[in-house]
């Protein structure tokens, strides 16, 4: 198994930490992992992305052109990464704030309303865990137990009381991710 993922959105959405938790989860499961962020003076509201690779084998390039899965959380990232998904790959996005929806028909596309669900849960910060849950529903590459173990490993002790809330968010994401058909969207227009 090798899963090459790009997660892209605004700084402050928890893009990098979502990738980090995914990488930790993979590590808890005994996989090889790499986590390569875009870095620099990106502020809240700027763009941020991270490439996460989980594999049974030694990982070669941590930096990629095409991905098995793209998790897209804002319009700029949609413009940049929709066409970086390998044919037959997966694109997951939050429709919140998206004007130009994806149009590719050679990939599987899913919507997760992370923003809305996080607001409903009364904690905007669990947004990224909802999206992660959605991803894990579509690509169950790591078991939930290992995600929880990864959370424990990555979070400082003082935040461990938040683990149940994160677990709830992941479960919520798993329940609410829906398939998105490009044809139907075009007819809607």
């Amino acid at each position, binding site marked *: 198994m090798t899963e090459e993922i790009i997660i892209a959105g605004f700084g402050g959405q928890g893009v990098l930490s979502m990738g*980090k938790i995914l*990488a*930790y989860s993979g*590590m808890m499961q005994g996989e090889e992992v790499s*986590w*390569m*962020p875009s*870095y620099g003076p990106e502020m809240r509201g700027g763009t941020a992305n991270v490439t996460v690779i989980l594999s049974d084998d030694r990982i070669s*390039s*941590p930096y990629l052109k095409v991905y098995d899965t793209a998790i897209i959380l804002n319009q700029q990232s949609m413009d940049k990464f929709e066409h970086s998904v390998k044919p037959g790959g997966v694109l997951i996005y939050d429709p919140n704030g998206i004007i130009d929806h994806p149009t590719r028909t050679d990939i599987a596309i899913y919507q997760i309303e992370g923003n809305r669900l996080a607001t409903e849960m009364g904690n905007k910060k669990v947004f990224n865990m909802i999206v992660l849950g959605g991803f894990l529903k579509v690509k169950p590459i790591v078991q939930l137990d290992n995600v929880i173990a990864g959370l424990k490993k990555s979070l400082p002790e003082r935040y461990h009381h938040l683990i149940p809330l994160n677990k709830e968010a992941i479960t919520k994401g798993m329940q609410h991710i829906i398939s998105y058909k490009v044809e139907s969207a075009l007819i809607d227009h």
Partner: protein
Amino acid sequence: MSELRLMKGNEALAEAAIRAGADAYFGYPITPQSEVIEYLMTERPEERTGMVVLQAESEVAAINMVYGAASTGKRAMTSSSSPGVSLKLEGVSYLAGAELPAVIVNVMRGGPGLGTIQPSQADYFQAVKGGGHGDYKLYVLAPASVQEMSDFVSDAFDIAFKYRAPVLILSDGLIGQMMEKVVLKDQKDRMPDEEIIKRYGSWATTGKKGRERNIVTSLDLIPEKMEARVHRLMKKYEQMEREDLRYEMIQCEDAEYLFVAYGSSSRIAQKAVQLAREKGIKVGLLRPITLFPFPKQQLLVLAHQVKGILSVELSTGQMVEDVRLAVKGRVPVKHYGRTGGSIHTPEEVLEALEQKIISDGSN
């Protein structure tokens, strides 16, 4: 107990410094390597091992603090990124001239000038061709993973003390910023002061006790003496070439074409090897782990086997010159690389091989 962790390259390097039993780290913040000093400050190494960590007033001061501690036989290191390393080169030249052991880390970013904070490998010439003034070389280790960012710290100290010479770890923003699994080595004890005095008493300035005074200097105003010093340095470099060359060959056995790449580019090139072989193109990868010494002989042997070589670096072509020197014109050698902070993809590397080497009429 060795310990498995998920860490950034910069953090792994910092943790490895503590575990390697380093006595001191002196640094100055610069992107993309500030995590090194941030991690060290957070970890309180003074309490863990007694290691001294100090944020200097400049990169210049930091390297000279390393020089001071090294002159007394202590295991001292510093780290920076390209513009900061330029500032350190005066001190590096002094370390080489005064024959002092020390570890310097460059987490490269794009240049020239203030350049960019994104990854680059454009400091190859600076690293292996001197950089600072005078007749000297650095032993240069090029880590290609977070694991190697960790492992190479104690390796670097070992080499530095074996030869009493400065050692450079030449990394880049990609390796420094990425997270991977890393197996951390067990904690090594710092060397007690009495042991330092006993072991390095023949040269270190630890206080004149029961012996004649020691002088650490790089100055020799008598030309014959200075020439002898330079030749002594050159002998060390020859010994490094004989005894401490490191490289890795990946899928070279049946290779008809060859990538030569180090550090982050070697990771990208390795993926390109995989993509090429999926297309039926037999490519191998030679990864120099040490950039000085350079695997010249290995390249010359491979030059008799392959039809062409592509040197892949995040620069406009620096290491390619050493590859060409090594193969002595026996096989076409071309360069490919993005620069200025752009990173080449495995697909781009493969495409460059196909266009510059395979379909090129010259072979």
